[in-house]
């Protein structure tokens, strides 16, 4: 581990000339959103204010060129973990992206900033997040529980990028207290309790009652990456005669069709890799409690395979591997 002691903006400015671009949140026009910057001119308002609009990994999908064109991305731990999952799923080239992971104090909806300009309701996903420290990616920006923030290299690539930019590095150990989990666990227990009450499909339908199947939750999800989603194809999104045929079979159907199928399939699809960023819940126009379903409702799947998405870049995604002697039936 090598440590670099310089300010956040200073680091970005030093790195920019050695890379093809930097993806970083900026505070602009009264809002906070991600920007992709290639010139220092446009890098004036970089911010680490705790707002969450979309998961950065979703933006980085398609950066596939490898080292030839490399960008750095300033991300929170859940975003770094999502990037690593997407690398495993061949949606991002690991070489194309230098991950600068920042300690996260928990985030607020960007809407809150627009409406009130302040921090009031921390996002549910953050309230229950057990991985707020910058431990994933190439370079960590350590700023919680330390007097003066600093950068630490996490991978050889991180070190190489910093040295190439001429950032002075010091070899030194970093020890710091782990995240305190008491509040987080309490909040999580509460969501688990709520989920336990949804113990039948009828109750699940109640929870999803207001869903209009806009599929925003899917579109903003970093882990939902299929280019051709089942729910955009004729079987998943029946129209016209196909709809009538299904209605005839069942005597009648609810519209838009496939509400329950959509959510159950999405739960299955994201189950192993869901990073719990809560982007889905934040994007839902009907304010549905999606964090209760993803990640809380899918946690048992990750526990089954002892898998933490994005924890280890070399660990295969559980559904893409197996052991001969495991699980039931044997």
């Amino acid at each position, binding site marked *: 581990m090598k440590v670099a002691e310089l300010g956040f903006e200073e680091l970005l400015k030093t790195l920019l000339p050695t890379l093809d671009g930097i993806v970083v949140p900026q505070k602009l026009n009264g809002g906070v959103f991600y920007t992709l910057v290639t010139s220092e001119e446009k890098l004036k308002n970089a911010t680490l204010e705790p707002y969450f609009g979309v998961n950065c990994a979703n933006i980085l999908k398609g950066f596939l060129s490898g080292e030839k064109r490399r960008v750095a991305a300033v991300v929170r731990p859940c975003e770094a973990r999502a990037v690593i999952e997407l690398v495993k799923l061949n949606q991002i080239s690991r070489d194309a992206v230098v991950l600068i992971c920042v300690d996260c104090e928990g985030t607020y909806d960007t809407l809150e900033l627009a409406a009130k300009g302040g921090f009031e309701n921390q996002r549910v996903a953050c309230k229950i997040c057990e991985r707020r420290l910058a431990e994933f990616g190439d370079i960590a920006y350590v700023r919680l529980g330390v007097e003066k923030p600093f950068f630490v290299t996490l991978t050889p690539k991180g070190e190489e990028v910093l040295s190439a930019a001429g950032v002075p590095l010091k070899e030194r150990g970093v020890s710091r207290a782990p995240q305190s989990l008491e509040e987080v666990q309490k909040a999580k227990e509460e969501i688990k309790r709520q*989920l336990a009450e*949804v*113990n*039948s*499909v*009828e*109750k*699940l*339908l109640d929870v999803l009652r207001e869903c209009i199947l806009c599929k925003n939750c899917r579109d903003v999800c970093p882990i939902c990456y299929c280019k051709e989603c*089942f729910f955009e194809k004729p079987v998943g999104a029946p129209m016209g005669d196909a709809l009538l045929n299904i209605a005839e079979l*069942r005597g*009648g*159907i*609810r519209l838009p069709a496939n*509400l*329950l*199928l959509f959510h*159950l*399939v999405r*739960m*299955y699809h994201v*189950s*192993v890799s869901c990073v719990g960023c809560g982007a889905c819940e934040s994007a839902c126009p009907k304010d549905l409690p999606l964090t209760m379903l993803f990640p809380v*409702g*899918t946690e*048992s*799947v990750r526990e*089954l*395979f002892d898998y933490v998405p994005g924890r280890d870049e070399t660990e295969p995604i*559980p*559904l893409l*591997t*197996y*052991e*001969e*002697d*495991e*699980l*039931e*039936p*044997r």
Partner: protein
Amino acid sequence: MESGTGFEPKVVGFTCNWCTYAGADLAGTSRTKYPPNIRIVRVMCSGRIDPIFVIKALVNGADAVFIGGCHPGDCHYIQGNYFARRRINALKKILENFGLDRRLRMEWISASEGAKFAEVMKELVERAKTLGPNPLREELL
């Protein structure tokens, strides 16, 4: 058919071509008795069974879903059943939240295990009867 409530569960089965389908066939040709509630969809390998098939069957009102494949080591495609096992175990965990997992059963049944196929069908239909009709059958979905 003898059943107290008169409720006859509908079971959808997905079985692999090489083992369980042949096992079911053997049960038939050797005239082994088993409840006729299952409708089998033959797929080439248990690894071909996308969990979406299972979810769709349940959402459409199936009272139980059965998945059959070759025993470990016997898969015609070497490893399809191992992947299937991971997928179905993951799916079960999700269905567990909503009490649907008990309507799903996976078994390895070889081409020579006609009797096992019949036995598993008996058990599954019994369990479906205990659970009662899939509540989603009545929902406007």
